[in-house]
């Protein structure tokens, strides 16, 4: 008998939608590749002779330093708070996430203000030790090592968050079996818990590294030349689109290698949890100096990654409040909100539609492919996306002008380019958050709704919508905050004379008016702290055996999508 599944038209409509979206993400990347190969080889040769070795070396050290630092700090702190007992553990559990609210460039500006030769730390040391005594050994924060330090301070929470979730997800029984098989507590950590958590740690580290490669503000302020700073300079200062595209292509290759290494290191180690039995994890009681060391170890990143910069920003803001918080400040804040709000609505709508389509078609292959392509956007640095979007839209404008004989900027001159770039970069976050929300709506709930007399629209309205409300809000919030913080793409694509809080922070900092940059920076941090609070609450309320983040808000899964 032959009875092929009858094709249903709604499925085809969804497929077209999904492929259109995937095409939208692919076009800027395609434009970069196209442009990079359209130029002559002269630029390559020039690059290789002059600056390329420096870019490569800096990028290499950043990847190495941030990779090692975030893994070490993130895994160790996650291990301490989830498997040891010491004073303040419950607070550290969520407080270790606080540095996530700090954009790297803000911490870089604050540290430059505090620690460079003109800063208060240097001044007090000079007071005690005399000028010669200090100068001989005082490290220069404006260096590669300073950049690596700053990036580590704000990026380790990615590893911390995922490693902690992995430790909590592990069935205690597995740990106990290893004990009964003769391993010491540390032995079972090394031979069972860490290997089991390795895939999650790899994901966390790769997220941190993607952010590090995406960073523009911190490395630029510390005078460390990377691909992103070079793309920015070549594009904005020299107006050399081909050169920017060629650098962008190199950076894409770097990121692709990173993603490949992460996949490869995971191998087939997508561990399934065999046990459904969870009990509170055994806690090793730390006493005396061990407890003190644990407290110090957990407190240091919170202090240097959040409390110190926040306090400095607060103090400077109070100093500057009268002059810096003017009408222009509020105008910029409004611009930021317009950009972030618009991008949030856009990403949640499109991401929600794709997640819904994936579900309705029961994972149709064309839609899974589309979702995978959309997911790539998060791995691509903002500067690369900016170059690609500008090239693609510029090409479109030229084509239209060629037809009409005009000379207008149809798409590339306005906010459209910014929204386009934000959608490419942040759609995966929205998609991930909505998809994780959908996992709570089992297929049988849809079926139950149908047998109880609702059509597909009714099922969406009365079951999906109310159950997804939280996830949609979370998705919107995550995109909103990321757009608020975003610097490289905004800098390259914003319309003439259109500034945001992030741009103002950057511009004041570039003019070495670090204190004047404080109010705008503090506003960005204040908004950025909202999703961190959500995450923290999810962690505080997480039940044993339930990963933080899957416990309702879906923040962590959203960050995992890359």
């Amino acid at each position, binding site marked *: 008998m032959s009875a092929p599944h009858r094709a249903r038209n709604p499925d085809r409509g969804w497929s077209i939608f999904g492929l259109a979206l995937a095409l939208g993400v692919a076009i800027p990347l395609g434009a970069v590749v196209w442009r990079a190969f359209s130029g002559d080889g002269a630029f390559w040769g020039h690059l290789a002779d002059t600056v390329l070795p420096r870019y490569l070396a800096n990028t290499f050290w950043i990847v190495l330093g941030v990779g090692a630092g975030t893994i070490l700090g993130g895994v160790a702190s996650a291990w301490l708070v989830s498997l040891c007992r010491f004073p303040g553990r419950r607070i550290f559990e969520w407080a270790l996430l606080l540095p996530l609210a700090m954009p790297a460039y803000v911490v870089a500006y604050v540290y430059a203000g505090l620690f460079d030769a003109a800063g208060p730390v240097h001044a007090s040391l000079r007071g005690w030790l005399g000028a010669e005594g200090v100068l001989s050994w005082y490290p220069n924060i404006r260096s590669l090592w300073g950049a690596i330090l700053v990036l580590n301070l704000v990026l380790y929470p990615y590893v911390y968050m995922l490693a902690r979730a992995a430790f909590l997800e592990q069935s205690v029984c597995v740990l106990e079996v290893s004990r009964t098989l003769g391993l010491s507590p540390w032995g079972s950590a090394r031979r069972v818990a860490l290997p089991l958590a390795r895939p999650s740690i790899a994901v966390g580290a790769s997220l941190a590294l993607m952010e590090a490669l995406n960073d523009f503000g911190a490395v630029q302020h510390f005078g460390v030349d990377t691909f992103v700073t070079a793309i920015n300079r070549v594009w904005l200062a020299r107006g050399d689109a081909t050169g920017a595209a060629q650098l962008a292509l190199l950076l894409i290759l770097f990121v692709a290698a990173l993603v490949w290494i992460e996949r490869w290191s995971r191998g087939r180690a997508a561990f399934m949890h065999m046990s459904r039995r969870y009990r509170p994890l055994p806690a090793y009681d730390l006493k005396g100096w061990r407890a003190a060391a644990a407290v110090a170890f957990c407190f240091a990143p919170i202090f240097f990654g959040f409390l110190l910069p926040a306090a400095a920003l607060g103090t400077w803001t109070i100093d500057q409040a009268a002059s810096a918080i003017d009408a222009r400040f509020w105008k910029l804040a409004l611009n930021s909100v317009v950009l972030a709000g618009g991008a949030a609505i856009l990403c949640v709508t499109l991401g929600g539609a794709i997640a819904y389509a994936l579900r309705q078609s029961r994972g149709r292959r064309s839609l899974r492919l589309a979702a995978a392509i959309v997911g790539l956007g998060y791995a691509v640095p903002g500067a690369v996306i900016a170059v690609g979007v500008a090239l693609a839209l510029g090409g479109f404008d030229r084509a239209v002008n060629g037809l009409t004989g005009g000379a207008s900027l149809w798409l590339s001159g306005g906010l459209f380019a910014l929204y386009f770039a934000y959608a490419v970069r942040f759609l995966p976050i929205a998609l991930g958050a909505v998809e994780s929300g959908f996992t709570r709506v089992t297929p049988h709930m849809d079926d139950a709704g149908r*047998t109880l007399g609702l059509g597909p629209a009714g099922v969406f309205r009365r079951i999906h919508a109310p159950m997804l409300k939280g996830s949609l809000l979370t998705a919107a919030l995550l995109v909103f905050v990321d757009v608020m913080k975003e610097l490289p793409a905004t800098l390259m694509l914003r319309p003439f004379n259109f500034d945001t809080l992030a741009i103002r922070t950057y511009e004041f900092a570039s003019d070495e008016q670090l204190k004047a940059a404080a109010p705008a920076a503090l506003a960005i941090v204040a908004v950025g702290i909202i999703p961190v609070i959500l995450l923290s609450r999810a962690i505080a309320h997480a039940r044993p055996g339930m990963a933080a983040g899957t416990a309702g808000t879906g923040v962590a899964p959203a960050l995992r999508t890359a």
Partner: protein
Amino acid sequence: MTALVIENVAHRYGPTLALDGVSLTVAKGEILCLLGPSGCGKSTLLRIAAGLEPLQSGRVTIEGHTVAAAAGAGAGEAEVPPEARNIGFLFQDFALFPHLSVIENAAFGLHRLAAGAARERAQAALARVGMAELAGAYPHTLSGGQQQRVALARAMAPAPRLFLLDEPFSGIDARLRRRLLEDTWRVLKESGAASVVVTHDPEEAMLLGDRVAVMRAGRVLQIGAADDLYRRPETPFVAEFLSEVNKFRGTVNASGAIDTPLGPVAAPGLAAGSHAIVIIRQQGVGVFPDSSAPPGSLPMTVEWVRPMGAASLVLLRRRGAEAAEPPLYARVSGKLRLAEGAFAAALVDSDEVFVFPAETPTSVGSGRD
């Protein structure tokens, strides 16, 4: 009038044939149980009846109206969607809506009624299943049995003409299951609607169903009252699936019998030299102390005894048998005291012996995964 007619329904998931031409009818007020191992297609059939799975081939009629018909190869007419079939579906995982309270769940299917009337009907449905007091609770605070009751009330509230229950008791504690089974039976019977219950548990099927359809590999092997199936199984699979058995393969000899460890068993209607399967139920093997062996019994050695309270499982080996001869399981009253290694006598109740022509080699019995 027949409430549900399934005609020659076939279904394929990719290369897998899930249903291979199934036909059956369910009368108004009747409970039909679909019994079979997992993967036999019983749940697919239920979902097709509900309209949750698009029909590929065959016809489904509910109360005289064709709700889906397809001649295969995509030549199907438009299907009546599940929401227009007026059915009550109970899911294995209950699928209660976590964002709604118990009463809101129960009233979910009553959206065409005014809010007050819907609430009243939902409350009545909850009272029928004994969940009236917990109307304000949320599903995640309920036990599995309570969730099942709420799901039943939710399915029942719109007064469907057909109930479809997909493994409704598999998630429930064994101790609680019997109570729930009885209560569910009462609710279904009182509703007057037709019901189809999918289960893999023969006891559940026989307790609940007016008739039982045994399914295997996408086909209905036999359909009938529980007693019919039990007394007159038409295939070795049905005999084996409904009870614990001893199974022997043999060849029919010149005098029309098959040799088994329990002596020759007559094989009426089977030609000499043909292969046959003999099935002897474990409780059809009577075991007696050697001292009071009844006439016609066979001498045995008790190899192994597991007392299980009311009954004991005994493994017997025929005295003087060759090593290759298979041993025999007997399920006897727990009152009978037997020592391992002791002599005993076995007598088979001929009502509990079934002879079938040998099929092509099968994995009968091991299909339960």
